[in-house]
């Protein structure tokens, strides 16, 4: 089964490498309501888009693009973090409709997209075989929008299933020149390394470095740095320190991975007894934030190196500076703890989540870090998938609470409108309104006829002046009379139906229930987040205290040595006498 699937994927990859894709890029607009859902969807407002879809569906407004809308619903549901529900939707779309005899009207394009997203979802869930089998069900033309991603996914699945020959074939064919190429090569190299095939791992890591040189964008350079460190590791394992050192020399000294590289470089140089070149690397680290584990180690190591080189005064100074830095570091951890324990802090993290994550993925996977924006102590933690899931879920829950708060405010307005309508349109109120207006009408009739009589007593010239005024008054009066007659005809004033009022009351109650549920869930997740963050801070604190103790020991050792030297000198001076 596995081999068949692998073959199918390979064949499909080769096939699509030559196939011209004919699907148009833009959705054609045939339905206003469908367009409004797309408007939210394209802005990644999946929650609003889903609601829009539900409203339009319940009114049966999505009459033209039913299958497209269903596919979109699946995508939105998945993006909104409801994978179980999304799976059901995709399966509903595909069930029976995959049968060739069933003329369900579903186009190949929609069908293929549904299979693709389903496969991608399985892949992210870690169900690789299921993902491969699902992907293999794609037939015919592949929609242009997913063409590259399809090839990428197929290659990733092959890597995970260790079908590395197929991966190499894809890299030499359909994936060549693709923006995904260097990532696939890297993944392939790591897979070779995991299998103990160091030669192939070396070759592929080297390809990543070459790619970085040919495409000097930051993301590829970062990847090349990682490849260089991986190569250094292989050389160290093989006992070739010089080879490792050469690779580490080429890692950039800035960026997220530079700390580890500088420390490794320093250690390799020490092992090669090249202390003169180890010191600059460690000094570069020494300038960086104390919250970084490598910096903590470098501070003590640098002092120790000075000590070994017979420079006790420089070593002592370095130990003293390190001690001061560790004291400050411990203070920073304490203040980080206070911030984390504050009422609002998890929300702060969640607000910054977009800066940590790339925005366009159907299924949230690994985060990509924004190094500068994160609390330095939590960098490692932020790259953990589980912690990231907590943040993502919390973000959605905060959004739900905001939404429910909005509806709770709206509920008050709904009640106000209904109360006003009930008061303003009671039968008694209507009767009183008609009686008052009739009185006013009679008074006005008398005043108008008096004015008419008075006008007749005026001169002809004056009568001529007043005539248009009287005419317009008559028109206005007629308008009033007509409207009054209309109101009189109302037998019973309009009232909201009892059914609607009950419906409204039920919905208002549901808002309160969901608010309670959401708050409960937020509390649970916030508590998890605090536990995890505090555990991470504990780790930092202990590490820092360990190196701080090392620095103190080093300092004590040097003081001791100095005292001994002074004593020896003093004894030497006393001895000749």
């Amino acid at each position, binding site marked *: 089964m596995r081999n068949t699937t692998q073959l199918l994927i390979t064949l499909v990859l080769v096939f699509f490498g030559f196939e011209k894709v004919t699907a148009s890029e833009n959705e054609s607009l045939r339905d206003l309501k469908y367009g409004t859902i797309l408007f939210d969807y394209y802005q990644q407002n999946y929650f609003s888009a889903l609601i829009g879809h539900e409203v339009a569906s319940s009114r049966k407004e999505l009459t033209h693009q039913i299958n497209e809308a269903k596919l979109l619903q699946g995508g939105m549901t998945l993006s*909104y973090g409801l994978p179980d529900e999304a799976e059901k939707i995709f399966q509903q779309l595909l069930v029976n409709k995959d049968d060739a005899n069933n003329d369900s009207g579903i186009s190949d394009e929609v069908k293929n997209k549904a299979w693709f997203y389903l496969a991608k979802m399985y892949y992210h869930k870690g169900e690789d075989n299921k993902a491969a089998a699902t992907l293999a069900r794609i037939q015919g033309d592949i929609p242009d929008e997913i063409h590259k991603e399809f090839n990428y996914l197929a290659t990733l699945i092959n890597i995970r299933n260790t079908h590395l020959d197929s991966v190499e074939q894809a890299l030499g064919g359909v994936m060549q020149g693709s923006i995904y190429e260097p990532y696939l090569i890297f*993944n392939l190299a790591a897979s070779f390394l995991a299998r103990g095939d160091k030669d192939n791992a070396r070759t592929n890591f080297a390809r990543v470095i070459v790619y970085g040189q040919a495409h000097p964008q930051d993301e590829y350079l970062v990847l090349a740095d990682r490849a260089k460190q991986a190569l250094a590791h292989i050389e160290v394992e093989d006992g070739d320190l010089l080879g490792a050192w050469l690779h580490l020399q080429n890692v950039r000294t800035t960026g997220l991975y530079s700390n580890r590289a500088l420390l490794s470089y320093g250690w390799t140089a020490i092992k090669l007894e090249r202390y003169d070149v180890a010191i600059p690397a460690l000094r570069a680290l020494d300038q960086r934030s104390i919250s970084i584990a490598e910096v903590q180690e470098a501070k003590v190591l640098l002092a120790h190196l000075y000590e070994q080189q017979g420079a006790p005064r420089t070593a002592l100074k370095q130990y003293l500076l390190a001690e001061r830095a560790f004291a400050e570091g411990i203070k920073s951890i304490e203040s980080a703890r206070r911030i984390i324990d504050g009422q609002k802090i998890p929300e702060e993290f969640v607000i910054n989540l977009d800066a940590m994550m790339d925005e366009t993925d159907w299924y949230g996977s*690994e985060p990509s870090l924004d190094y500068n924006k994160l609390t330095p102590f939590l960098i490692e933690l932020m790259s953990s998938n589980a912690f990231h899931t907590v943040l993502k879920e919390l973000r959605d829950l905060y959004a739900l609470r905001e939404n429910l708060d909005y509806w709770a405010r709206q509920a008050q307005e709904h009640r106000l409108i209904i109360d006003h309508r009930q008061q303003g349109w009671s039968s008694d109120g209507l009767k009183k309104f008609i009686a008052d207006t009739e009185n006013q009408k009679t008074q006005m009739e008398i005043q108008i006829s008096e004015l008419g009589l008075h006008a007749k007593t005026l001169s002809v010239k004056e009568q001529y002046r007043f005539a248009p005024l009287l005419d317009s008054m008559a028109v206005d009066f007629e308008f009033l009379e007509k409207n009054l007659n209309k109101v009189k005809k109302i037998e019973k004033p309009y009232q909201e139906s009892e059914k609607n009022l009950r419906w409204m009351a039920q919905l208002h109650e549901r808002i309160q229930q*969901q608010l309670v549920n959401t708050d409960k869930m937020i509390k649970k997740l916030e508590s998890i987040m605090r536990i995890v963050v505090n555990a991470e801070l*504990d780790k930092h604190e202990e590490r820092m205290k*360990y190196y701080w103790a090392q620095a103190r020991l080093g300092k004590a050792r040097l003081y001791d040595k100095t005292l001994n030297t002074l004593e020896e000198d003093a004894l030497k001076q006393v001895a000749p006498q």
Partner: protein
Amino acid sequence: MTSFRLTNSCISVLFYLIISINSAYANDQTIDFSEQGKQKTAEYALSNVKALSKEIQGLKKSVVDLNKDLQLMEEELLFPSSTQLSIFVSLDIGQFFTLESVKVKINGKQVASHLYSEKQRQALARGGVQRLYLTNLNLGKHKIVAFFTGIGPNGRPYKRASELEFQKSKGSQFLELAIVDDRAKQEAKFTIKQW
């Protein structure tokens, strides 16, 4: 923005090798800088998230359902179909015009205006349709005027207006302010379409 990532297994392999690169030299890396108990609590807490995930999915779904019902109820309460008028904005291609804002007047009175963000412009250009305004209107004749401002061909500021006299009849009514590229004239065409 498109993102590319390393697979989980590759990240763990890489993480392992980067950690072990130093452990090959020094003993410091093998020190467990944490109380094991606390770390286990943290790991246990994170594993609980998976269990909570089902509950969260259920909650999300019920809030979506509630929102649907509330929207339906509110529209019925505030905008009954007999008097309802919806105004939409759509953009076809948008090669000759970059939409910046729209202003709408009904019977001489300004009722809606909107300033577009880049994200919204992109969403419109890809086939999205914006519901700009929802209101109640008496039966009978009405006049709508829409003003579009933005950047026209050659990067020049561009302002156009379009108007329509329409009859509001019983039942919900929809008007679409459509901006369409006119390839023959190499400029955008602004129309108001009655659905």
